[in-house]
């Protein structure tokens, strides 16, 4: 039974069609990679599925509910690790975790131990009382991951979660997620630019380009379809070799400036 599905899902920003009649399905308990070059429509699709944007047309369902019309029901089912930072940098690591625990109704009794477990796992427990603004990029990333896992979501959306992490941390994180997937049947929906990561982790992959799905299947199927040896080659065969510019909105540009200012 599929836990996430879209049919002809479309999102337009004015003239630009960011997501163009996209249809795919993710099975419950699956690890699903959503791949595409910059500006292909990955993040927009995730925002649509996670109740942050209204679709222009088409149908979508997450855990049996429509993310736009029944947003409250959908929000209870997932956790998300955003591509951009979403921490409160004026709060400590622990305070960020605690705030999240309250927002997601993690019972007070188990909150503290759960926070300790996750912060320890991501090697941040010693820094729990430091303000997040003193953290390095990689530490912030780890904290976001810890936070996204706090409330035991049944679906986990990860938008380029390993961006800026060293191979050790990446490895550590994926083994945790695979274990979580095996143990609790957590559905994992992720995007990444590291093809080796997708090849190793994902059970199924969809490749999106210019807002359209260009291929779907297991890593092996994609390689067979394109007659290539690695997922990286398959990806390049599917999406071409030209370098993409992201069609940045004014808000994205502002964020970019903000990031430059903060030296991230």
């Amino acid at each position, binding site marked *: 039974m599929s836990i996430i599905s879209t049919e002809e899902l479309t999102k337009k920003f004015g003239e630009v069609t960011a997501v163009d009649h996209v249809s795919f399905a993710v099975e419950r308990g699956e690890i699903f990679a959503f791949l595409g070059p910059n500006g292909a429509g990955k993040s927009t699709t995730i925002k649509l599925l996670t*109740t*942050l944007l209204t679709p222009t047309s088409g149908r979508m369902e997450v855990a049996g509910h429509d993310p736009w019309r029944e947003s*409250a029901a959908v*929000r209870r089912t997932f956790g998300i690790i955003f591509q951009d930072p*979403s921490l*409160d940098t*004026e709060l400590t690591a622990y305070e960020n975790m*605690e705030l999240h625990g309250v*927002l997601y109704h993690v019972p007070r009794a188990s909150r503290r131990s759960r926070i300790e477990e996750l912060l320890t796992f991501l090697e941040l427990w010693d820094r729990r009382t430091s303000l997040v603004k003193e953290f390095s990029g990689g530490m912030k990333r780890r904290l976001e991951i810890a936070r996204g896992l706090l409330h035991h979501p049944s679906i986990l959306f990860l938008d380029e979660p390993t961006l800026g992490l060293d191979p050790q941390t990446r490895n550590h994180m994926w083994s945790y997620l695979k274990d979580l997937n095996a143990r609790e049947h957590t559905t994992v929906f992720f995007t990444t630019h590291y093809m080796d990561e997708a090849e190793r982790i994902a059970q199924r992959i969809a490749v999106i380009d210019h807002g359209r799905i260009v291929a779907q299947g297991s890593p092996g199927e994609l390689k067979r379809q394109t007659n290539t040896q690695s997922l990286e080659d398959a990806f390049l065969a599917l999406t071409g070799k030209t370098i993409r510019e992201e069609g940045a909105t004014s808000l994205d540009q502002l964020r970019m400036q903000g990031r430059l200012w903060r030296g991230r």
Partner: protein
Amino acid sequence: MEVVYILWLRQLKRYGRSRSRIVGSLAQPLLFLVALGFGFGPIYARAGGGNYIQFLAPSVIAMGILFTAMFSGIEVLWDRQFGFLKETLVAPVPRLQVMLGRTLGGATVATLQGTIVFLLTLGVGFRPTHVVQLPLAVVMMFLTAVLFTALGTAVAAVLEDMQGFQLIMNLLVMPLFFLSGALFPLAGLPRAIGFVARIDPLSYGVDGIRGALIGAPHFSLVVDVSVLGVFVAALLAVGSYLFSRMQV
């Protein structure tokens, strides 16, 4: 309830940790108090108005609240830019609670700021004549604070980015302040200005705080509380509606 509380607490923590912001936002009320208070004091006294510092001090308290509250509301824009807003917008809690938590937090911060300004006014010679009514003054301050935090939030929910911020300062905050009864008595004004002052919600905040601290309100404390209450209810409703429709 816990959601409202933790978001309220967040605003307080952020306030407590930014000492420079606290000190910086005290400079302006202090400047008004000293420059206008002592500058216009002699003329005001000659015109038969009495002690201008007595008149001006409650206004400067209201001013501190107005600025801090509007900033707290507009902080939504910062949260949007720095990403934290998304964390609250995808959470499985009604956005009304999110809006309430932030607004009450911002309003508490503004009230604290107003209290610090009040202590400063004592330093330059302000003497409240109705000391027993201090709690009432705090109520007036808090109502004013909630009103303008909700207004700031509503405005921030509509603005796309920080570009519009200067516009809001010049077209909303400054007129609200200068056209209220903060700097001059409302009695005997030209009709047009008098009318504008009567529809400016800050007039009732200033009048309420002044009435509670030194007596002789222009309207009456009942009118002040009622008008502030109606504005607060309306702006909370509008603010949470706009906030609930925000997309990232």
